[in-house]
């Protein structure tokens, strides 16, 4: 092999640069986001619950929101009957944000951490008090 030494040194330097973020951040645990449940409506609930169990909401709220959107808008069915048998009006602004009135401290905290940018808020309103339009 011609210039074998130079090539191997080059590869090692290249790998070193590419993996730099990995060992640079090694051992530094980033604090995971803590979405706040501190809103007046949630504080008044005796048993704190969302429309579905917490684990499901945490992992699959986006799928649920898509189903809600299609059901309400395209099928005209605006009532959601949850797995616990409770009925909810399907509305991001009037049902979700009724409890989670703190979009900036609830939705945004995780979304910013995960670097996802849902475009809900280019049309839907968040309550004005805590979250400016």
């Amino acid at each position, binding site marked *: 092999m011609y210039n074998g030494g130079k090539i191997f040194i080059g590869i090692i330097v290249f790998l070193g640069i590419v993996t730099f973020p990995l060992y640079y951040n090694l051992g530094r645990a980033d604090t995971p986001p803590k979405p706040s449940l501190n809103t007046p409506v949630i504080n008044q609930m005796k048993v704190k619950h969302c429309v*579905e169990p917490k684990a*499901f909401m945490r*992992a*699959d709220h986006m799928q649920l929101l898509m*189903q809600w*959107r299609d*059901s309400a*808008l*395209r*099928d*005209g*069915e*605006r*009532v*959601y*009957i*949850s*797995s*616990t*048998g409770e*009925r909810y*009006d*399907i509305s991001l*602004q*009037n049902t979700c944000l009724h409890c989670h009135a703190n979009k900036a401290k609830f939705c945004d905290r995780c979304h910013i951490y995960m670097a996802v940018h849902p*475009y809900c808020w*280019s*049309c*839907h*309103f968040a*309550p*004005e008090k805590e979250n400016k*339009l």
Partner: protein
Amino acid sequence: MSMDRREFMKIAALSAVFGVGGPLLMGKLGARNLEASEFGLTPGGKRAKRWAMVIDVSKIKGPADYARITRACRKAHNVPVIPDPKHEVMWIWTDDYEHVFEGTDNPYMEANVKDQTFLLMCNHCDHPACVRVCPTKATFKRPDGIVMQDYHRCIGCRFCMAACPYGSRSFNWVDPRPYIKDPNPTYPTRMIGVVEKCTFCVERLDQGLDPACVLASNGAMVSGDLMDPNGPVRKLLASNFTLRRKPDLGTSPNVYYVIAVIGGGKNA
């Protein structure tokens, strides 16, 4: 690399196992759907087989009444007021006889009708041209006849605006939010780059309420089921002379205008 028949069969069989088995396994692992959940209609909502609107323009007196009706619509749906006419967004608006019923006017016709101002809105056609041309099915017709716009799907191609013979659709050339004063917090706005139009107030019908324009019109506008022979819409249609806009185009519009000739006209 050479490959004999036996080697090829081995690779093909392995690929089949991973190709078919993988998604099946992942499907089982990833299945987190809630089986017990379901969707339903809002109890107490207004339902119809075929929604229609009758507008008795003679009962709407003067610019103040028109302004009240259009303002009610704007308020209910956060429709922006954009001063630049090129960027205007309208769900309900007004025009004069010769533009509303073009081709049916003549220079000598009854002055009350000819000088009347007419309220215009989406006709929620039986055969909506806008729905036929939409490439993403963002606009669609509900089983009850209401032509809806799904802003989540709209890509802003504006084919529907070219197709609609009534000019009922508006495009958001600019971000509408700065032009909405005193927004209704229970209803969304739209964003730049989507087409919007009248929705027959589906969200209000579901709550058992009349459309916002009907409520603000003090009885000049009536919405109801066209398929109900004893309903208010059919009663008005049976007892008055009505016109529809451009019926010869075959879209079969569902907004009817009561044309009342009052006292034989001014020039009689």
